[in-house]
């Protein structure tokens, strides 16, 4: 395998990971504000279907993306309304919406399966694409990939370097304290749940219009759950989340390459790798193992390693806050 081949593989990994990156950013924003949107799998299916069909009818991919974002916002609004206004369990609402999105997308999309439609054209960035290695990897892609990459930086900057971002995190960490400092906690939660939902919707359309073109029954099934797991792996940080999404894509294409090279090994081993890896990753992140790992490291490395590896969910994640 020579260098060009490796570069082609890696640039396709980044392309494949771009919808996951967008979804992870959206869900990270939502969960940082204290709301779990568990409906990712259903939302992405509905958004992928809607995005494709609308783009097909209007012959304009961007209208498709808009429609998909709208679908994501509607699902998120239901979650936000159910948990904030009706004070119900977010996990239950999210799960039911997952089932509904799955069923509804196969019902509404049944006439549009396996037909060619519009998709996003490649758009290289003039000067930057000539940089060796980095050029073909990051700057010879299309707008959706650029959007995903910019979104990661933008989300991080917004959450950790701006005042509204601080309020967003405060609503998810200590809603009572935030409220007493004048933050409208539930208003903030509504806002970012819906914003996160819009991004998840865009991620769905990024599949059907960019990565896995077209629509088929259960087009993106399972990827929403992967995104939810990556949010945890990413420690509710967009940069680590994006890293996790790319790592996931890399493992998947590594499995494909290995499968081609060793056809005698059963397919099940390769198909299960991403899922087993996700469990292993959750295990690694959630257990005490990282604590132990940090404690055996040289003292000077402990602080940076702690910042790098240690994650904890937003303290008020999934809880209901009553403003009174």
């Amino acid at each position, binding site marked *: 395998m020579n260098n060009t081949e490796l570069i082609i593989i890696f640039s396709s990994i980044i392309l494949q990971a771009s919808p996951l990156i967008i979804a992870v950013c959206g869900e990270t924003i939502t969960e940082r504000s204290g709301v779990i949107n568990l409906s990712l799998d259903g939302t992405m299916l509905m958004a992928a279907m809607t995005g494709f069909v609308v783009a097909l009818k209007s012959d304009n991919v961007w209208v498709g993306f808009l429609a998909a974002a709208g679908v994501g916002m509607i699902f998120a609004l239901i979650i936000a309304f159910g948990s904030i206004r009706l*004070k119900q369990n977010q*996990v239950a609402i999210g799960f039911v919406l997952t089932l509904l999105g799955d069923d509804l997308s196969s019902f509404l999309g049944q006439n549009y399966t396996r037909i060619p439609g519009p998709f996003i054209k490649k758009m290289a960035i003039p000067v930057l694409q000539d940089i060796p290695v980095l050029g073909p990897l990051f700057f010879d892609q299309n707008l959706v990939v650029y959007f995903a990459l910019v979104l990661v930086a933008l989300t991080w900057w917004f959450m950790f370097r701006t005042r509204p971002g601080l309020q967003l995190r405060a609503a998810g960490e200590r809603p009572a304290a935030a409220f007493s400092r004048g933050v409208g906690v539930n208003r903030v939660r509504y806002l970012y749940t819906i914003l996160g939902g819009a991004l998840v919707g865009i991620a769905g359309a990024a599949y059907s219009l960019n990565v896995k073109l077209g629509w088929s029954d259960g087009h993106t099934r399972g990827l929403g759950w992967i995104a939810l797991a990556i949010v945890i792996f990413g420690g509710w940080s967009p940069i680590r989340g994006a890293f996790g999404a790319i790592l996931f894509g890399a493992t998947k294409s590594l499995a494909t390459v290995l499968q081609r090279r060793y056809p005698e090994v*059963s397919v099940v081993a390769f198909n299960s790798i991403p899922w087993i890896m996700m469990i292993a990753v*959750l295990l690694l992140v959630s257990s005490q193992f990282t604590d132990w790992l940090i404690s055996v490291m040289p003292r000077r490395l402990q602080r940076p390693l702690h910042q790098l590896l240690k994650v904890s969910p937003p303290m008020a994640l999934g809880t209901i806050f009553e403003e009174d």
Partner: protein
Amino acid sequence: MKAPSRQLSPLLRIVEILLPFLATLAALLVGAVMLIFLGANPFEAYRSLLEGAFGSPNAVADTIVKATPLLLVALGICIAFRGGVINIGGEGQLVVGAVMATMVGLSFPDAPGWLIIPLSALVGFAGGAFWGGIAGFLKAQFNVNEILSTIMLNQIAVQCMNDLLRCPMIEPVQLQAASRIPQTARLAQAFDLPRLVPTRLHLGALIAVIVAVLVYIFLWRTVVGYRIRATGLNPDASRYAGIPVKRYIILSMLLSGGLIGLAGAIQVFGVHHRMFTDGSATGFTGSAGFNGIVVALFGQLHPLGAIPASFLFGALLVGANKLQRAMQVPAAFLTALNGLVVVFVVGSEFWRRRWSRLRRTEAMDTAAQSIGSEAESEVKA
């Protein structure tokens, strides 16, 4: 002093009890609109739905047969949810239980049925328990989110099932045939679960109802069941009270997965008499692993409430099949209708709980007021 009226008006109480059914009706109403758009007469469609579910002894038997796995899954879900573990791995546990039970049946084709049927039910239980137990262990020991781990385990179970059915367990005939349908050979006739009446109704339904009663007794009349519920209600308080919370989390997942695995075994020995796959889990399970969650919520997470809930859902599934055949609507309409019922029923459950909470706070307010006015009159005196 006047006694504060804490009673909800009788009309509202009736509405509250009937709420899940009203929700189902509302979902069917939305379905009717969809039917009109599909160019079908909704009245005729729903008549054929009712006919399909209850129209003849055979139809009723089919409904009960469909309700059986739903009931067992719902019972497993009840135990897990009551223990504070959100088990979404029903599909995977069902598949593992079914595959393991099929293996037992295929391995001893000449053994007597009275030996193999209980044995394979036991092995199915153990398989499901093992698969559920993994998630329980990871949650208890390493704090791994069980919603995500059970979903991942579902996918792994499906991959394993596909691989087993395409190669080692495939029916020998299919190996020669070009189509190579991924299914096992039919199990020996001696292993068929006994029929209760001359319809498709098999022993499994009776087993499921007995298990429902047993689960009720277990959760509400035994110490272990009490501890599971205590763990679910407040893990911290339970820990201070000396309950080994981790052990009970694992136990509730073992039992939950076990009952769902048993459902898989019963599906194999009572209905299909073989194992097959369409590449996803739903081909074999018919989404029972997910629908069982809805049935459990419908039955308000009570083992006995799950019995009528599963019957209603079974009726809906069987009737909808008949509706589809009679009206020539696309098959996807059924999944959409199913999804609608799920959303409406679970949604109504939210409203019910909200009402009861409102009523509680109202009652507390009036109580507080009456105490206040009493104190006031005392001061005046």
